[in-house]
């Protein structure tokens, strides 16, 4: 009996060590309600950006991205009807069939719709592609353009290629459009043509 005691002690110690190692290595599982808050399939993709390295100020909930200022006021949001994917290495969110809303009421709120958006958190730039439509929140003006970038910091929108800007009964065409919400101005550049519609 006594000659098996050391073996039992060693076996017990090994068992305890194995248990400690298992507990140390084991990853805690996310609560199930955080993974699937919304019904459509693309929203599962949208849950991936809940990575510990996600940039400060970014919150993802289902297929919606929000950007808030340091005081917590909502600056802009993106809603994706299609897939929303986050690349943790490049810090880029790619969304398809998206609606973008610049919500700061003290400035010049506007909305965009585009087939695809890339939100580059490293460069602090949103890029909309494949044909973008936009309008002022009060519907006073609207525009179409091939390609759009929005700077996070300045909130300035720069669009290029086949610009068509409509205001009331008037239509303006140009090569480039700049929407400056802080200055509450829209600038068109390059071969501007302005005329009454119809």
């Amino acid at each position, binding site marked *: 009996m006594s000659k098996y005691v050391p073996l039992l002690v060693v076996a017990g110690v090994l068992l305890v060590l194995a248990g400690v190692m298992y507990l140390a290595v084991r990853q805690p599982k996310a609560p199930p309600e955080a993974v699937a808050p919304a019904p459509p399939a693309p929203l599962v993709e949208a849950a991936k950006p809940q990575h510990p390295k996600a940039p400060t100020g970014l919150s993802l909930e289902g297929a919606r991205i929000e950007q808030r200022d340091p005081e917590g006021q909502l600056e802009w949001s993106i809603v994706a009807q299609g897939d929303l994917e986050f690349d943790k290495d490049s810090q880029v969110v790619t969304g398809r069939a998206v609606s973008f809303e610049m919500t700061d009421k003290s400035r*010049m709120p506007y909305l965009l719709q585009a087939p695809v958006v890339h939100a580059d958190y490293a460069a602090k730039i949103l890029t909309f592609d494949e044909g973008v439509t936009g309008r*002022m929140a009060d519907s*006073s*003006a609207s525009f179409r353009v091939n390609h759009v970038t929005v700077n996070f910091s300045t909130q300035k929108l720069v669009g290029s290629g086949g610009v068509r*800007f409509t*205001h*009331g*009964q*008037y239509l*303006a065409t*140009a090569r480039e459009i700049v929407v400056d919400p802080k200055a*509450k*101005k*829209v*600038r*068109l*550049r*390059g*071969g*501007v*043509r*302005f*005329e*009454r519609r119809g």
Partner: protein
Amino acid sequence: MLQSKLLIVILAGVMVVAAAAGVAQQTKRAQNAVVTAQTMEYDWAANTVEFSGGTKLVLTGQHDATMTAPTMAVKLSAKADRVVSVVANGPVHFSLLTQADANGTRRRIVATAKGQAVYADDTEILKLTGGATADLLPAEGAAEGGEGLARAEAIHFTGQTITANLKTSKLTVDDANLTVETRAQ
């Protein structure tokens, strides 16, 4: 001699009225206006549109008219369905081909201003200020069948301000100088 001078003044007056009437009729077709420029800036708060860089306004329709200036500011109505006012900053060049008068004669008005040109839609007044000039010229190739005397006249106005009231078809020149050139037949 006195009769000849009087005749020239009367003819000049008739031409000015006819030209102003042409301006008025042209303005009524202003819905065919096209502005081209290098840049356009829409002020969302003020509801104004400002053009700059080789700005050119072209009116098309039965008559031809153009206005060029380094910058033009257009004030739109609240619904943006009509132009309330236009301010062109100088040097401003304005050219208009009038409709044919009773004699079938068409004339070209060429006006310039070093200061600015302001058009107000409610009063229908176009005002050129700052070294304004206006030439009333027989339109080349546009006076077929017209009277020879009307074709041959060219009138040159200079003044600090030239005002065209498009409602009353009246052209007013402040501090005016008038030169009438008669071509030899």
